[in-house]
């Protein structure tokens, strides 16, 4: 098992004819992702690495059948429209790779997703990968490398940094621990699936025995994971690293933020809350495989 994607998931790529879209279409296809179509308005009829290109998501659905997932590689300013288009065609999971999507656009996408019973990863995400099954986005960069770095296994990985998603997973592989699914939840302040939502998915995945999480200062994601554990909704062993310990904490400018969140968001609060509920918080990411050994043997 894995979460969100496996080798059978039917995937399309929006923006497949662009610089990144094209490069990552090759990665996904070579790795084994079931990419059934690409979409670029005005470029219908072309092919990219043997993947047929259509003018709209709806056209792709008409010609190729139901679509489970869309991976989006288009300029940030156009992402909202592309996401709404995918939802309208019945797509239930989006992976929004681009950086710099305006925050109100993300809120609009989130509202539309809720209304349609759909979900999204990102924006500003490297994507996700279920080793040996499928990759969505650009994790690993090249298929050969992705096969070397990530191996099937029973550890879930969830990270707020793209590079660290790969790094933690690679260090786990090197220590002999494979992964069920590795996911970069995205680097922005508001993301579709955040750490707590990913933990719930890992909780219900039989194959995942434990999870490694890379958190960062800012937002309330890690605190909400602690809340989830306290409420008994996440029960598997969790190893966490929080980045930004020595970083100068930004001068908080928003009183409203402070009133609503209190001290949530700081390094100390995150570590303390996670430790209180029994999470194994480590001081360097190289301790993650060591801790995994202690837990899983």
């Amino acid at each position, binding site marked *: 098992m894995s979460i969100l994607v496996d080798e059978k998931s039917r995937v399309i790529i929006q923006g497949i004819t662009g610089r990144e879209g094209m490069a990552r279409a090759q990665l996904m296809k070579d790795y084994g992702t079931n990419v059934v179509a690409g979409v670029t308005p005005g470029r219908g009829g072309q092919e990219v690495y043997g993947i047929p290109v259509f003018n709209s998501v709806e056209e792709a659905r008409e010609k190729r059948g139901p679509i489970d997932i869309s991976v989006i590689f288009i300029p940030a300013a156009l992402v909202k429209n592309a996401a709404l288009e995918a939802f309208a065609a019945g797509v239930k999971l989006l992976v929004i790779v681009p950086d710099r999507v305006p925050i109100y656009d*993300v809120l609009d996408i989130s*509202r539309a997703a809720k209304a349609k019973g759909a979900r999204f990863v990102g924006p500003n995400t490297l994507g996700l990968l279920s080793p040996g099954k499928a990759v969505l986005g650009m994790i690993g*960069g090249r298929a050969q490398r992705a096969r070397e770095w990530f191996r099937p296994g029973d550890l879930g990985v969830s990270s707020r940094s*793209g*590079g660290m998603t790969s790094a933690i997973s690679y260090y786990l592989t090197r220590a002999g621990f494979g992964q069920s699914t590795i996911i970069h939840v995205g680097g922005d302040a508001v993301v579709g699936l955040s750490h707590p939502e990913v933990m719930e998915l890992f909780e219900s995945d039989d194959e995942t025995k434990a999870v490694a999480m890379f958190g960062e200062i800012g937002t309330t994601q890690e605190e909400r994971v602690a809340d989830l554990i306290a409420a008994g909704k996440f029960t598997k062993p969790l190893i966490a690293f929080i980045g930004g310990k020595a970083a100068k904490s930004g001068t908080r400018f928003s009183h*409203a933020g402070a009133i609503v969140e209190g001290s949530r968001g700081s390094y100390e609060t995150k570590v303390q809350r996670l430790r209180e509920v029994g999470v194994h918080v480590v001081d360097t*990411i190289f301790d993650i495989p060591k801790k995994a050994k202690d837990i899983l043997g």
Partner: protein
Amino acid sequence: MARLYEYQSKKLLKDGGVRVPEGEVVFSAAEARSVAEKIGKPVVLKIQVWLTGRAGLGGIQFAATPQEAEDKAARMLGMRVRNYVVDRLLVEEKLAIKAEYFAGLVIDDAQKCPLLVFSAVGGTGIEEIARRHPDKIATIPIDVGAGLPEFEARDLVRRAGLTGSVMIQLAELLVKLYNVARNKDARSAEINPLVLTADDLVYAVDCHLVIDDYAVFRHPELGIEVAREFDRPPTELEKIAYKVEERDHRGTFYFFQMTDRIPAEGTFIGFHGAGGGGSMMSMDAVLNRGFKLANYCDTSGNPPASKVYRAAKIILSQPGIRGYFASGSGVASQEQYHSARGLVKAFLEESLSVPAVIRLGGNFEEEAIRILAAYCRDLPAKVEGYGRDDAPETCAARLEALIRENKAVSHEVRPIPEFQPAAGAYAFGTLTGKLFIDHGLCAGCKSKGCIGACAPKILKLVGDKPVLAIAPEEAKKGKCTECLACEIFCRFHEQNAIAVHLPIPGLAEYRKKSLKERESD
């Protein structure tokens, strides 16, 4: 997050129908006097800075007459507050205040919607007040599709304990506040204090909007120069860096200076991260070693070599750094040789005299490390490359040892010579620069290795001379990826006939100016 000054925020509120005190921004004492005369009542003078707690700094003063306004303005302008000098004041009518409230809008990452906070108490120390009087605070999530209906705003105010006509006035204002925030893509919007005057009118007395960096492109009317999360106006070097980022959307480049003047004590280094999480982890590693950062820089998202080169040139425009530390996540998806080539070009041009430790783990790291080792060999200082199996802590320790070995020499910034291509050189434009090939030298070339080195395969031989195999417009539009492989190959293995000129607007002038300033010190 691009911050707006109080006077800019108030202008937007006013345009949105919110009542604000009458006033104007001024840049001189004489202007302060004339604005005070125009207002014709006692005024308040407020320094315009991106900080809270101005009253405690002497940044808010009252004046009963235009003369007093002029005198006080003369003292306030030029005040040094933390990192910068006050250059503008807001002069506005002084109100007779009966009560103070607070209103603020934030984006809630858990509920994924804007959250409006209203407090029936406001003014300085609002956070403390809020802790002591939770019953006076009410919040409401806003549905971005429907907006904020007036009845919800009224109920929000009622829940905070206010009723009657003031509730109705406040609710109207809250709806307008949300609309302004939404229309201007504000990530946060705050009115504190929000006041009720002696004649029972509601006014926004202080207001701060923070615009979403990613939406600044929709609002040219706001005149935001650098859309970054700074708590002070950008430095000259940051402005130069931002221009680079603005003109080249391949990958991202972020540059922030911790100090614009490096003191003699402490070991300051130039910091060059790759990717948010990896940068943060790497920064923790060097800070734990006792280094101080001159700057924080992050190039990520698959930037071309040219962008990494420009980032390095900007980092190396900071005199006094004792070393250069570059490190990312360690297992990057991008081909690492692009970054390696960008760094090599910059280090060679600067004839780097301080040690550099470069952790380039990820795809093709072996080649990246080999590029650094092969081409930085003859530099005055050592450059060492590391990969995914080397921890940032190990790399930070290496840098410490190299700096010690280098007798803590500090980096000297040199003027940038004017670029002079060889006379009659073959040339074509690239997305952000120009590539020159001195065909006169190509006769001596045996390998013609530039053709094979070219990553996008856009060069071909005509006779014994490399030329573009595609239309020049295509190269200019981005088919030439500015990977720098041809230039570096030709320089080290052949005739040094290729030069890629990658201008950084403003940098040469900046260096000239700062060199002159240092001389006169």
